[in-house]
């Protein structure tokens, strides 16, 4: 008996349903692209994406494939390859609802769930138009006498709990603990999700808790509902310390995504590509 749930990509995909609120890691946190591929193949609909705090190709592909009806994010772009065209197109044509946010608010809403409190306060935001369109954010006057500025207005952000989080990581140990290094936003995401699945490059025959330094870089198995091995699972995105982004492929995508027809052609090839080969 393995001490954790070793599963397949398809097992993970089967946990995502129409309407699922799905956690989306930033491009630096381990983008689960092989999972995304399978998710698109399943033709799941009405996903709500919660980005911490932004998404690049993963979000744009899901949107272009018609899987998404709502997205909460501080930014959607293709980074140095410019704007995320499928996202832009869906917004302009009102096919998706955008809950426009700002990075620290997206972090704080998950921290509220992490601590199991109904809300988190945050400074800033007031006076921006973001607030005008967020019924779920609330402005109060600071009720404290001994801390903060007297009478200052402050925003309360709701606790948000994700239905499912999927991210890609370098490795898990034999007990199902995940090495996340400095990407501690993945811990916050995991703490705030009902279910957490991870794709990894490999499962190694080690115990990350055997020394304190390794332990410090670890997300405990306690929060993980299943792990699937997926070699080059972030491709064409990069994976810190393992491989760089495939700049050529990302550029190709950015060009193809400019209109729906060329996007569709690109996706037909992409969805049927062999990931192992694709990543060289």
């Amino acid at each position, binding site marked *: 008996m393995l001490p954790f749930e070793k599963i397949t990509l398809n097992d993970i995909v089967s946990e995502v349903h129409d309407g699922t609120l799905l956690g989306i890691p930033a491009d630096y946190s381990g983008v689960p692209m092989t999972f995304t591929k399978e998710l698109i193949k399943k033709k799941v609909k009405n996903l709500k994406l919660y980005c911490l705090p932004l998404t690049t190709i993963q979000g744009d592909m899901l949107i272009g494939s018609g899987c998404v009806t709502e997205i909460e994010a*501080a930014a959607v772009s293709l980074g140095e390859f410019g*704007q995320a065209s499928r996202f832009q197109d869906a917004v302009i044509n009102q096919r998706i609802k955008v809950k426009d946010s700002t*990075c620290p608010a997206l972090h704080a809403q998950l921290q509220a769930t992490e601590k199991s409190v109904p809300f988190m306060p945050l400074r800033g935001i007031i*006076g921006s138009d973001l607030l005008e*369109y967020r019924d779920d954010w609330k402005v109060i006057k600071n009720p404290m006498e001994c801390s*903060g500025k007297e009478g*200052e207005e402050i925003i309360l952000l709701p606790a948000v709990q994700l239905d499912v989080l999927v991210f890609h990581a370098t490795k898990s140990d034999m007990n199902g603990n995940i090495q996340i290094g400095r990407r501690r936003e993945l811990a916050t995401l995991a703490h705030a999700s009902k279910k957490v699945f991870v794709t990894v490059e490999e499962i190694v025959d080690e115990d990350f808790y055997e020394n304190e330094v390794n332990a410090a870089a670890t997300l405990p198995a306690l929060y993980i509902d299943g792990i699937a091995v997926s070699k080059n699972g972030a491709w064409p995105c990069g994976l810190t310390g393992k491989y760089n982004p495939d700049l050529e492929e990302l550029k190709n995508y950015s060009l193809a995504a400019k209109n729906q027809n060329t996007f569709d052609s690109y996706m037909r090839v992409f969805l049927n590509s062999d990931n192992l080969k694709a990543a060289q």
Partner: protein
Amino acid sequence: MNKLDLKFEELLISILCDLLSNDNHVAVGAASPIPGAAALLAKEEQKIKGKKLRVTILHSLRFNNFTDGARELFDCAAQGRIDTFFLGGVQIDEQANINLVGTGDYPNLNKRFSGSFGSALMYYVVPKVILFREEHSKRTLVKKVDFISAPGVSDKNLYRPGGPKFLLTNKALFSFNKRKKVFCLEKTAPGINQNDIEKITGFKYDLNNEIKNFTYPSRERLDILRKVIAPMVSEFYPNFAKRIWFR
């Protein structure tokens, strides 16, 4: 461009570098090669003087020492530990409001851009925010932005130690007067005069008594930039470094 064969980007880097000389900690966000290079250049020049400037470049593994995850930039800034940060804007208006979301009548936009990133906190808490937007036109510098990602100024009942101090474009450098809520033209790019700026700017601004031209970098600074900083920039903005320095 001149006899040093100066690239225009190098000139912008040098102008930004001059704005950082009294800082202790400069942070640079995503997709900002020119600010990133300017911060590293300032750090190197301070080091030569025996002084210390800390530079955090988010997009880099080597120049990002944060260990508390992606939220640490925002917490660190809110704690008052970052002196200078750079922000851009699809539109920037007369009161230094910035728009990173899109043009048109939100949510029914004509054109959608990435989104507000961390601006709706960083603009409030970092004492010296430098707005950097290369394109200088009536399209980018407008009377009133279509969407406020983050406002230039705030009411007194808000906690707001931070805000805009400068705006740099490829044509001009403005300072921002927080009390008067107005930009002030400080410097213009080579070959550009005050009248040219007026024609391409969509908002009103004050004029400094003595409007100068962008100062060219010294030979010494340019040497440091090309020999020491350029290879560093290659690590986190390879395409930019290649285009400017290594092709």
